[in-house]
């Protein structure tokens, strides 16, 4: 009698109680029939998939948690993933929204696409040195949008390793910082103008005041015959002394004000 195996296989999962544990077995059942399609026997091949099932459940839980995290990140944080060469493989909506680029414009490019040109080459070389050595890099970066506007981001870049401990991806998380940065820049501008004023007062204004005072002192030693000239000279003397006093006060004020401020226009950023 010729026996042939039918192609159809059935996958069945059943629960059995074993050692007080529910086991899940996946059965592949093959019908073996004779030439007249009469069923002769069944071959059942079973595989315990209980652990697989536990892993599957865990995976689903992790996925749910991960999705919640991704959702939270997406609403506030600019996120991107690159390969080991820095080529963008993923960018979230916030990244697209802020940079004004579409996802397909970003993927395949490096972050050079949003380079503002503000930072030195050394700045990025140093960054690469850190992250390619597996270190987390933190810093502030000025980026450029597609339409040519600038934005500051506080950045964290995390190297991700594969199972062989080799870095194969970089995860970048950024918070938009433009407003804070603009305020800082405004403060620095104000401080700079304070310093300019200090310079102007101490040099450009104080110098002529001193000259005038010197000349007036010489005149003051002379005897004037008419009282009118004497009065005018006194008036000039009083005025210049007043100007001298106030300009000194201003210099002192700006100098002290500059000292207490934590910012300084000499700060580079």
């Amino acid at each position: 009698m010729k026996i042939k195996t039918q192609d159809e296989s059935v996958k069945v999962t059943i629960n059995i109680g074993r050692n007080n544990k529910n086991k899940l077995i996946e059965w592949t059942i093959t019908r073996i029939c004779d030439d007249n399609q009469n069923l002769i026997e069944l071959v059942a091949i079973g595989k315990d998939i209980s652990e697989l099932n536990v892993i599957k459940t865990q995976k689903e839980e992790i996925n749910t948690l991960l999705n919640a995290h991704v959702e939270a990140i997406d609403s506030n944080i600019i996120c991107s993933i690159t390969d080991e060469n820095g080529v963008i493989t993923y960018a979230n909506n916030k990244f697209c929204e802020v940079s004004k680029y579409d996802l397909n414009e970003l993927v395949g490019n490096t972050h050079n696409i949003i380079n503002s040109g503000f930072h030195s080459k050394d700045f990025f070389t140093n960054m690469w040195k850190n992250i390619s050595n597996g270190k987390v890099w933190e810093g502030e970066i000025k980026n450029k949008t597609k339409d040519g506007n600038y934005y500051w981001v506080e950045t964290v870049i995390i190297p991700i390793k594969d199972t062989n401990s080799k870095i194969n991806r970089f995860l970048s998380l950024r918070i938009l910082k433009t407003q804070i940065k603009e305020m800082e820049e405004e403060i620095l501008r104000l401080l700079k103008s304070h310093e300019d004023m200090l310079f102007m007062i101490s040099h450009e204004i104080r110098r002529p005041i001193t000259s005038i005072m010197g000349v007036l002192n010489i005149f003051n030693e002379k005897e004037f015959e008419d009282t009118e000239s004497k009065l005018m000279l006194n008036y000039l003397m009083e005025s210049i002394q007043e100007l001298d006093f106030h300009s000194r006060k201003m210099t002192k004020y700006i100098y002290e004000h500059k000292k207490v401020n934590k910012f300084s226009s000499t700060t580079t950023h």
Partner: protein
Amino acid sequence: MHKDFSIIEKRLNILANSTNLISILTADGIRKYVNKTFCDYFEKTEDELIGSSIFYGYSDNQK
């Protein structure tokens, strides 16, 4: 001795050594072959299993 194994015996040997649970049933659900993995898994001997029906088997939950 191994050289004398027929092809069928060799095939049975493969089934016996499989880590999968293997059983061959008659058309009406009587076990006529179970491998060692099957016996070990259900903590039964070959004698207990062969000839038994899958409908009165190892589990009350089985449908």
